[in-house]
């Protein structure tokens, strides 16, 4: 079993989950309270990775991160190397790819909260920030948990986007799903079997943890 690839995947998933939680919470909160008419457009964009072939997403990310794109050039000036085929590039691609898995459960959790609780908190003297910390967050804890686990599991398992953006550099962009593909191509079936089984077990355990804690059926569904 390819422990290096396994470690890399876990590191990628943890990084992406952490960053995405910070980005997704305000976005999901805004989606759940806004009366902006174009909300459906934002929702569509966020949800695109659910239906888009990973190769298509990977292709556009590759273009956006390439040495000729503004982002690629800025990164080049800052870090001295390009973004494509690097761990950082993978992180950026994965953020986009896993965005709906963080935003949707959070937005669903925020939206099912009784708005009069926020009103009550405000008239009791709490600032919007305090209301979020003391009321909205504790009452949406299932949504947070679902977002975290789904993002993590989804990032660990991604393949197409990684292949397009990251390639297959051991220790840098060779994630566990790429390693399995490689092993099968090279007819190393025993290696592939062990890695695949480890991934299966991890995914199952994560989901079992979420559904074990959930109170409503399918509370953790990304399409909730």
């Amino acid at each position, binding site marked *: 079993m390819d422990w290096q690839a396994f470690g890399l995947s876990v590191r990628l998933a943890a990084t992406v989950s952490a960053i995405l939680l910070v980005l997704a919470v305000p976005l999901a909160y805004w989606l759940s309270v806004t009366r902006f008419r174009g909300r459906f457009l934002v929702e569509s964009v966020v949800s695109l990775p659910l239906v888009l072939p990973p190769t298509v997403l990977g292709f556009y990310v590759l273009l956006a991160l390439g040495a000729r794109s503004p982002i690629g050039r800025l990164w080049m000036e800052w870090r001295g190397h390009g973004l494509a085929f690097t761990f950082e590039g993978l992180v950026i691609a994965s953020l986009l790819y896993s965005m709906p898995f963080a935003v949707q459960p959070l937005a669903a959790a925020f939206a099912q909260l009784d708005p009069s609780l926020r009103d*009550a*908190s405000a008239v009791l003297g709490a600032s919007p920030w305090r209301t979020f910390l003391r009321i909205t967050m504790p009452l949406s804890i299932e949504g947070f948990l679902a977002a975290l686990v789904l993002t993590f599991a989804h990032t660990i398992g991604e393949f197409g986007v990684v292949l397009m953006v990251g390639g297959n550099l051991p220790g840098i962009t060779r994630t566990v799903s790429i390693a399995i593909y490689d092993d099968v191509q090279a007819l190393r079936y025993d290696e592939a079997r062990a890695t695949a089984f480890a991934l299966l077990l991890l995914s199952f355990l994560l989901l079992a943890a979420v559904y074990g804690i959930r109170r409503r059926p399918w509370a953790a569904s990304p399409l909730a």
Partner: protein
Amino acid sequence: MTLAATIVKRISASFTIDVDLRASAGITILFGASGSGKSTILRCIAGLMTPDEGRITLDDAVLYDGGARVNAPPQHRRVGMVFQQLALFPHLTVAGNICYGLSDLPQAERNSRLAETTRMFRIEGLLDRKPARLSGGERQRVALARTLVTEPSLLLLDEPLTALDFDIQSRIIDDLRRWNEQRRIPVLYVTHTHREVYALGEQVIVIDNGRVLATGVPHAVLEHPTHPLVANLAGFENLLEGHVLERDEIGGTMQVRIGSSGPDLEVPIADLPSGSAVTVGIRAGDILIANEPPHGLSALNIIEASLAASRREGPAMVADVRTTTGTRLVVHVTPRAFERLGLHAGGRVWLAVKSYSCRIARNDTIRGGFR
């Protein structure tokens, strides 16, 4: 403490709230049908909604001023509000809920206020419970306590007791009264049931369709409504339009013809010339119903009619009757009386109405005399 609020808020193309109201220390009832704009007015005062124009002040403090672009956020208004759905925080215990608004106070002060308030509202035994494990009345008390413990300068209550049975309602109302005797802050209490108006109000403001219809003490506004709409809201199920036929100064009555063909009703004399267009309000429970022409009653109005339909509503039978001249009336009788009289659809009945059960309102005083 005095609240002065001028609020203009366009809700839709056909519905605009435009009110000007004052409330001084004591309980003021905002009375009106559902959808008349009462809750929106409260939300504007609390800062949960922004008016389009107007000015809201609490003594010298300006909470909102459209012209000067002042709009204090709700958390800075020192306004307490109890919501219709109560909005208790489900993840906090009763103690956690009550102390929620006290986070800026030192621990000792918090504890003493918690102890005092829970004693006042008799919920000391519930401190460790979550809202889900409270009865309806207990929840109401906790919601009140949570708001009052912050010692607001103004209290807004949005139909907080409507869901409770009468006994619990009146005990909570007593608690609220006792609490307010010490504080003397303005309390705006929204309701659409007139029982609560009598139980609570020192002052009532009648709201209809986003406007103030009448203001005054409950007895004056509801017992002698000068505006048909106030009468309707106050529980006069029958509002009959007609005109004054003739006045009998000595007998103390006057005759009003309903519609163009009657019936003619004897009503208490009022300062209205013959020919005045009026509305007569009669409560459905004030009409006697008989299955043969009644004799020897003091009631001056005996009207022949037929029973069009009937249905049971809660403990009462609601009878839909039509007079021989085509006027429709609603009559409330007990199911037992209904059965004993052998009433059935299509059957002939006689209605007896005392003159003093007829309230009279002039049709041309749209804004009423109590404004």
